[in-house]
Each structure stands twice: as C-alpha cells, then as structure tokens.
C-alpha cells in the first residue's frame, strides 16, 4: 500500500445543484501520488456530482480540498481545476476547431508554450494514431477517435490528477491499452488517477484503491481487502459481489 503523503484530500460536508437540496453528504477520501483510485457506485449514487465538485462546477459546495503535498490546507475551486485534467465520458469538442486547434487552445489557456505544445503533442498524437488527422475537424470523427482527442488534450496538460469518467466506453481494445499505458507513464511522473466505471472487473484489476459511493455518501473505501471486510465477504470475493452487497438497499449506508 502506498504510504506517501496524499496528493489531494477531499472532504465534502454537503454539495449539490440547489441550496438546501444536497446530493452529497459527508464524503471524504484521499488520493496519493501515482495512485489509481476507482470511484464506484450504482447509477445516481453521486459519482458524477463528486467529479463536478472537484472541477468547480457545482453551484453549492461546502467542503475542503487540501493538497498536502504542496502544503496547502484549502484550495479554491478555481485553482484546483488548473491541476486537474478531466476526461469526460462523452467527448466535448468545438465544431469550428481542427484537432490541432483544440490542442492549441488547451495549451494557450494552460500556459504551455508553442514549443512545448509541439514537443508534447507529437508522441501523443502518434500514440493515439491521430497524427494524420491534426488538421481535420474532430466533430466529424468517430466516437472512439473523438474520445482519443479528449485523451490527448488531457495528457498534453500534464496535470497532477486525472479525472477519468468511464474510460472504457467508446474506445477499441487497442485504444484502451494505449490509454492505460499512457496513464502508467503519467503515474511514474507522480500524477494520480481518479476514475469512475461500471466495468467492475476492469476496475478490480486496474485500481489500487476504491471509493464506493452509495446514496450520496461513502459506503466503503480502501483497498480490495478493505472493501471485502466492509461487505463482510470472505477473501477472494470479486469486487462485483462486494459492490452488490454494499449497494443493496438498506445495507449501503
């Protein structure tokens, strides 16, 4: 188990889209450098709301996000978003930009020089086999290729934390492998990954730790043995069964 100081500590007391109607309550977890943490939960549990909160997109947010590695106890949401790269489940693209212009905007806004942009983007575009399409409109790409554009944009920024929403949807097996390899390289650099997925067997193989969200709160968290203990399941129980035990109505909280 990784015993480093956490990269980020999240403590959400209450958060949601409307004042007085919180969707999340008492959600706390941390992420360590180079770690892959799986944010799991059934539909409507609050995973996407947590992601939006970390990106500073929630109108009502009461809680703190600390970056102990930097010695910062509380970080403003706005500063947080510059350290995080978000890879959404549905690609977000601009219809009047070419692929290269998508990268140019990400670089210009994030303080990456043009020389750095060329240097960083060349291997990424080759890795995801997009180098021949750099002057094409991504809005006309297939869904899988559009998702690769989002990956290239995220990797280009070299953030401290990747928020990856459903990484296995829309990508072909080769692209999934390339994504995992690229994420591994980023981990070696010290970046952490927080990913949400419903593909639990993949999550079990990929993640170092898990945060299991249910009904707006944390049902269990920790390594796979910790999750098994919380679910009262014996050793060797797959994550899928633990997930079912912990999220069945009445046992979750």
């Amino acid at each position: 188990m990784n015993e480093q100081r956490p990269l980020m500590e999240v403590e959400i007391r209450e958060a949601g889209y409307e004042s007085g109607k919180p969707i999340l309550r008492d959600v706390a977890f941390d992420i360590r450098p180079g770690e892959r943490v799986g944010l799991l939960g059934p539909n409507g549990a609050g995973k996407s709301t947590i992601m939006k909160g970390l990106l500073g997109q929630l109108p009502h947010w009461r809680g703190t996000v600390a970056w102990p590695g930097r010695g910062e106890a509380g970080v403003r949401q706005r500063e947080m978003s510059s350290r995080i790269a978000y890879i959404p489940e549905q690609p977000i693209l601009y219809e009047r930009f070419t692929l290269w212009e998508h990268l140019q905007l990400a670089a210009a806004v994030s303080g990456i020089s043009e020389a750095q942009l060329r240097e960083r983007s060349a291997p990424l575009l080759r890795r995801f086999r997009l180098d021949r399409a750099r002057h094409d409109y991504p809005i006309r790409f297939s869904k899988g290729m559009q998702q690769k554009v989002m990956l290239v944009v995220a990797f280009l920024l070299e953030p401290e934390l990747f928020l990856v929403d459903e990484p296995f949807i829309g990508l072909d097996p080769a692209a999934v492998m390339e994504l995992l390899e690229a994420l591994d390289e980023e981990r070696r650099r010290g970046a952490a990954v927080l990913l949400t997925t419903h593909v639990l067997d993949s999550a079990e193989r990929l993640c170092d730790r898990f945060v299991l969200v249910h009904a707006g709160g944390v049902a269990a968290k920790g390594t796979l043995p910790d999750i098994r203990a919380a679910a009262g399941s014996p050793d060797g129980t797959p994550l899928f069964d633990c997930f079912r035990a912990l999220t069945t109505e009445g046992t979750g909280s």
Partner: protein
Amino acid sequence: MSGGRMNPMLLTLERIVSFWRKVWKGWRLVLDWTVLLYIVLPALWIGGGIYTESMRQPPPWVDMIPATTPILVLAVTLLRGRLRTFAEPGDGLFLRNNRSWTARMIAVGFFYTLAARLLTALTVTAVMLPLATSRLGWTDGQCLILAVSSALLGFVWTLARDRVERRWTGWRRTVANATARIAVLAGWGFGTGLLFQAGRPLLYADAVLVPLAIWLAWRRLSASGAFAHEVDVERDAYAACVRWILMEAGEVVNPPSTKRPLLFPKSGRLFRRREARQRVAELWLRATLRDPSMVRSLLVLTGAGSAAVWLSPAWLAVIAWVGMVALTILWLHGQWNQWVTERYIALFDWRDETLHKGEESGRMGIGLPIAAFWGLLVGLRFGIQHGGYGWLAAIAAPAAGWAIAWFANARATDWYGMRARVKAQLEAARRTKEAEAHEAG
C-alpha cells in the same frame, strides 16, 4: 399505430400528417392572436392592396418584362425542393430490411413531392396570373400548362438533386449542386425560349420531362444505401420549416460540411507575437470567420455602416462612423462572451488576463479593418467634395479610423475587466454570506 391495418402507404401518410402537425405546433408558439391581429393581418391587407393596385394600374416597367420571366420565376421557386421520403432514424432498426415496404414508402414520397411541386407551381402561377394574362397575353390554359410543366421540372430536379447529394459530400456536393442547378435553369430558360419563338406549346417540354422523371424515379427506387441521406433530408426539411421562429434560440449549431476547414486549413498564424492572448485571439478569429452566419452578420454590419457613412450628411457621417465603431466593439464583445461559454472552451481554467486581453486582440483583428474601411469611405467623400488636398483625407481618415477603434477597444477592455472584477467580488461576498448563514442555521 394499429399493427393489423398498417401498410406502407398509411404509415407514410401518417408521417406526413405528423410532420405538418409538428411544424404547425412550432408556429403556433409565435402566432398568437396579438401577432395575427397586429402583424399578419395588416401585412396581408397592405400587401394585398399593393398587389391589386399594381395589377389595376401596372407600373411602366411592367411592359419591359421579357415574356420568359414568369417561366424563370417559377423555375427558380421550384428548384428549391428536395425529394421527401419521411424516413425516420428508427426505421434503421428493422423497417429498412423490408425492401417491399421501403420501396412503397419511397413511392408515396414521390407522389408527395410531385404534389408539393404542383401546389407551389399553381400558387405562384395564380399570383402571376394577372400579369401573364393582361400584359403578356397568355391564356388561362397556357398558364395552367406552364404550372404543370414547371411542377414536372421541379420533380425531375428533386430526383436529380437527390442523386447528386447521395453521390458527393462536402464542397464537391456544394459545387455539383450549384452547377446542376445553374445548368437546369439555363437549359429550361433556353428550351422554353425556343418553344416560344417557334410558337409551340410547353407540352413539348413535358414530352421530355415525363420519361425523364419516370426513369429517375425508377433508378431511385432501386438505389441502395440511401437511408442516412433520407434521414438527413427529413431533419433539414423540419429545420427549414421552423428555422425562422427559432433563429433567436442560437442553440443548434450545424457542424462544418467539410472534413477540413476551407478557411485557414493549416491553422496558420494570424499574429506575429505568440503570447497567450494572441494565440487565443487567433483561435477565436479563425472560429468566427469559419462560421457562415457570423460572416453574414459581419458583412451586414459593414454594409450598414458603409451606407450610413456614405449616404448621411458629412457631419452626421463622422458621428455615424464613430458610433458604428462603438457598436461593432459591443457586438464583438457579445460574440466573444458567447464563444467562451462553448462547452469545450469553458472546460479550461481561464486566467482573467488571458480572457480579457485575448478578447481585446480578437476584437482588434476584426474591428480595426472595418473601422479603417469606414474611415476610407469618409476620406473618399471628403476628397470628392473638396478635391485637391481634400484627397489627403482618403489616407488620413483610415488611419484615424484605425486609431479610434484601437482607443475604443482598449477602453472597452478596461471597462469590461472592471465589471468582471466587481461581479466576481459580489459573487464571492454572496457565497461567504450564504456559508455563514448556513453555519449559523
């Protein structure tokens, strides 16, 4: 839908009714009694009055209208249509596997398209009837034959256009479509002109159009892989019917029709300096100039400003010039604000400096050349009026326009920046107050 009685013809008829009901529901949103009473009825009354008056006492230029004009007016009107099949995306699940149903539904689409062409042709002919009978000396029968022949031409065109659009994509489709349209118009104008000269009726043209329509329709029925195109046509047809009432919504954006941009295809540099503000401004300029609706708006703005500067009295022209520069900056600010809320653009953490200075550079890229152009018009007017050294104004005024726009742009940046800071402070204060109230509660 009652499965037992349903057949391809009934299904297509049901879809036709449903399509027009949906369009009517859209229009009903804006056509309430106040709009009908204060806008539609007066417009019909005034328009009808002008029409009947001009028919009773035609203006002198009516005598100069060539005899082929009604024919070309009808042809231009009828070359706007497309072949309708009323295909729906859900048909791809199982319906399209049944070739017999598909063929019969498309056949109903043929009849609908032909009927729509005929209705349009008869309406336009009825409007032109007084002109055609009294001024050009045509009989009612000749007018009817003209309407039917034009409807046939329109039907043949929809089938030909359908073929062209299924065959090509992107700019090739645009070029092929435009070329075919011009060729058909020229051919129709030339052919009917020959018939008139020879004193032959237009029925001779029908002898060519009818077999051509049957052949094209037959080919269309056996065409494969047309489903996606049909769905696109149906989507466009609905959009065309409700576009006018939704034009202020500004939500639906048509993706570019080409794989690569036609303008700035290699994302080339527009500014020499490469700081974040210039790089961002460059991206905004490219995106703006690639958007046809924005280019149209810019041309309208430039045209309106040019007219104001050129046609007003000299003292008013100078005021109009400065006023139009300010208006342009204001309009560009609105466009920039809209751009930064685009989902991809809003994904990133924009620093205030990049946001405001980028906008300033972007506005400069569009606003300064326009201001200089208006300045040139002011200078030319001065030169024409005063001659001699007055022509120096044609050099000085564009430079002055450039300077005025640059100054106004910089002041606008200061103002917008200050407004944003105040807004952010008020928002922060509101959040703090809300948090304190929550803690106390």
